[in-house]
């Protein structure tokens, strides 16, 4: 064969990449999704972006809106649009025309799907990028988590592939709205189930899940186990849908009547490939589903782990250098660098209380932020923020209550002060007790009447709220109401004393007060 003949033969062969590129360019150029983008941008700004902006400046917390807010916002649009494009050949009555073309229907359908995905994913990733950039300018530690973007992308591909296939199989002008609403309901149902079950089960497959705790990804890395399972499941679903598209005689480009004829349904090789894609997709989705069922919460890291995928080596604590500042009297407050933005707020909370209790036996010499998971169970539920422990005593605290999604000014001011005053005057905030009725429960220790009066008196003196009352179901008895009134009177009386007098009295009487020998009448 001469060089010229070889070149002619090469030129005579259609270039598949070029064909795909050109068809894809047309699909992208003529996509009607462009009309949806302004609406999605508006939705993005008022839902995920504003929500994230209100959250504390922490990477994992803020970027959780990618899957919890932005993803569910995108799903109905992506599903509806993909269905609309998938049903196009049926709606536009081009089945006969396209049925006479040499290229398999699967090729052009995958090009249409890819064109749809280009717009859907472009919009989604642009929103993710905007969120990440805004977060990067606000946080003080860490880097952008990649998994929310990966899971969101793969799951949107699955939603689009599934919806596109439905559109191709059941073309009609009402298919798109029905699929969009159906998938939205499915997502909401899965989400609500995930929330109600605490996110530990197969419902953890839903990208739209629980808001993570403040400390997620800060003291320990976030385990990618569940994200991997989600990617497996959704990638499997996407492959299954794409395989079904290739297998279905209905989408062979000839309409319903001639659907089952061999002349219309594509060649053996295409069927083998489509069957393999479909089988691989189903296998992957089933594997993901099965693995999700084994997910459990780690007692060490608080992460949702999948034992079969979990790498224990990744459970090591992330090393960090705490950032510290001094409150009044040289009281040192140290926090994780991720919480650096909130250090001054914490210091201003510790200063007045340390001025009251410093020097007293049991008063902490410094405060250190620790991983919430390392504090006693149910402590946070009892509205406490930490414990004073060790020799010399150190206040180990978490900001889990002070920052519940967004910083809580009242909790910042009162929470730490209540903890320290209670710890010095009464002791531990409570203890775990086992009851026959309900098993182990956390029982707060509010102390004796005199202790309560002194605690509330000190808190009142520094302008903090009273220590939260103990458990009292129903209406308090007349006797209890009278006792509470007496405690309040004593607390007011104690608060009115000069600071030096209060401190001197506490220095002299703290041992007796803690031992329960001081009565309400003894409180000055």
């Amino acid at each position, binding site marked *: 064969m001469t060089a010229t003949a070889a070149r002619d033969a090469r*030129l*005579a*062969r*259609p*270039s598949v990449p*070029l*064909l795909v590129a*050109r*068809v894809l360019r*047309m699909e992208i*150029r*003529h996509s*009607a999704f462009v009309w949806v983008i302004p609406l999605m941008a508006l939705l993005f700004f008022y839902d995920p972006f504003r929500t994230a902006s209100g959250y504390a400046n922490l990477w994992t917390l803020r970027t959780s809106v990618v899957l919890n807010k932005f993803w569910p916002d995108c799903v109905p649009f992506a599903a509806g649009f993909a269905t609309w494009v998938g049903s*196009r*050949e049926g709606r*536009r*009555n*081009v*089945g*006969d*025309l*396209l*049925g*006479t*073309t*040499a*290229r398999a229907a699967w*090729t*052009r359908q995958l090009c249409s799907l890819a064109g749809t995905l280009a717009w859907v994913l472009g919009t989604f990733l642009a929103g993710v990028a905007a969120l990440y950039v805004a977060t990067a300018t606000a946080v003080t530690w860490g880097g952008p988590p990649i998994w929310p973007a990966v899971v969101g992308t793969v799951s949107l591909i699955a939603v689009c592939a599934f919806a596109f296939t439905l559109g191709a199989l059941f073309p009609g002008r009402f298919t798109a709205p029905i699929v969009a609403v159906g998938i939205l309901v499915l997502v909401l149902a899965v989400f609500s189930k995930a929330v109600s079950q605490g996110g530990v089960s197969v419902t953890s497959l839903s990208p739209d899940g629980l808001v993570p705790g403040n400390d997620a990804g800060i003291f320990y890395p976030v385990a990618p186990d569940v994200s991997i399972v989600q990617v497996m499941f959704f990638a499997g679903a996407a492959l299954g849908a794409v395989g079904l598209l290739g297998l279905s005689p209905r989408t062979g480009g*000839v309409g319903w*009547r*001639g659907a089952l*004829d*061999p*002349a*219309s349904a*594509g*060649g*053996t*090789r295409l069927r083998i490939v489509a069957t393999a894609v479909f089988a691989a997709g189903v296998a992957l989705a089933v594997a993901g589903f099965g693995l999700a069922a084994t997910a459990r919460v780690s007692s060490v890291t608080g992460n949702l782990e999948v034992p079969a995928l979990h790498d224990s080596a990744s459970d090591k604590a992330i090393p960090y250098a705490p950032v510290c500042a001094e409150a009044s009297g040289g009281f040192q407050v140290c926090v994780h660098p991720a919480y650096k933005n909130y250090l001054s707020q914490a210091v201003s909370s510790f200063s007045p209380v340390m001025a009251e209790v410093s020097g007293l036996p049991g008063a902490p010499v410094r405060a250190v932020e620790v991983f919430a998971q390392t504090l006693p169970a149910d402590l946070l539920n009892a509205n406490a923020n930490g414990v004073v422990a060790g020799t010399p005593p150190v206040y180990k605290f978490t900001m889990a209550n002070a920052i519940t999604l967004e910083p809580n000014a009242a909790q910042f001011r009162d929470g730490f002060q209540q903890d320290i005053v209670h710890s010095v005057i009464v002791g531990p905030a409570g203890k775990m007790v086992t009851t026959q009725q309900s098993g182990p429960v956390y029982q707060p220790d509010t102390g004796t009447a005199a202790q309560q009066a002194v605690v509330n008196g000190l808190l009142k003196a520094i302008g903090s709220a009273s220590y939260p009352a103990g458990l009292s179901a129903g209406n308090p008895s007349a006797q209890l109401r009278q006792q509470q009134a007496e405690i309040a009177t004593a607390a007011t009386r104690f608060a009115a004393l000069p600071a030096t007098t209060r401190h001197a009295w506490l220095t002299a009487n703290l041992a007796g007060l803690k031992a329960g020998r001081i009565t309400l009448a003894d409180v000055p």
Partner: protein
Amino acid sequence: MNIELTSVTRSFGRNKAVDGVSLDVGPGVLGILGPNGAGKTSLLRMLATVLPPSSGVLRLLDRDPKSTPQRREIRRRLGYLPQNLGYYPAFTVVEFVEYFALLKEVPSARVHKAVATAVERVDLGSRSKARLRTLSGGMLRRVGIAQAIVNNPDLLLLDEPTAGLDPEQRVGFRALLRDFGQTATVVVSTHLVEDVGAACSEVTLMESGHIVFRGTPAELTERGKDHGVGDAPLERGYSAVLQASRKDGVAA
């Protein structure tokens, strides 16, 4: 022969749209005439490989359309304009024709030239950038013809191609058909006998799924010599053949 049909039948439920048709067609322009429901469109759809025959043997361009690789080769060399042309309104004329050129696997290097040539041949060069939604019915028909001829087909199948075309365009289109008929097999299904007379070298008349006449337009005209129904000689021939076939009970 580019088209070889042997006892081809196509049924839809109990209704036989095409009933035992045998036909050999070489290069040239073949017109298929017939009343509504005669089976013209079903026959054309079988020739276009979108509808397989219920029975009988069909060979196109010396290939068997039942075989996937051979069907693919046929489709590369096939042009088809369906009766009801579906289209994508947002596409421009050039994009729509290019879309089909790509799917018909026109060699990549030749796509642009092939598209430009096809668009020019249907006289839409000045509207090549216009979106399809902005075109008139006649122009859309011409776009349909352009996509059918973009791969320079060896087998061109046109179902009611002149519907919606104005007289001047019709004249141009007939010239196009004659031109293609020099080297390719062109099959035109139509109700308009004047198209057949002006453009076709051969004519076939279908009635109730059967072919009841095959010959030249002159021969069809000859059949209507002593027949009074119809304004034009070819129309009279058409009516005469149909009446004769009905009398002979072909439809039964």
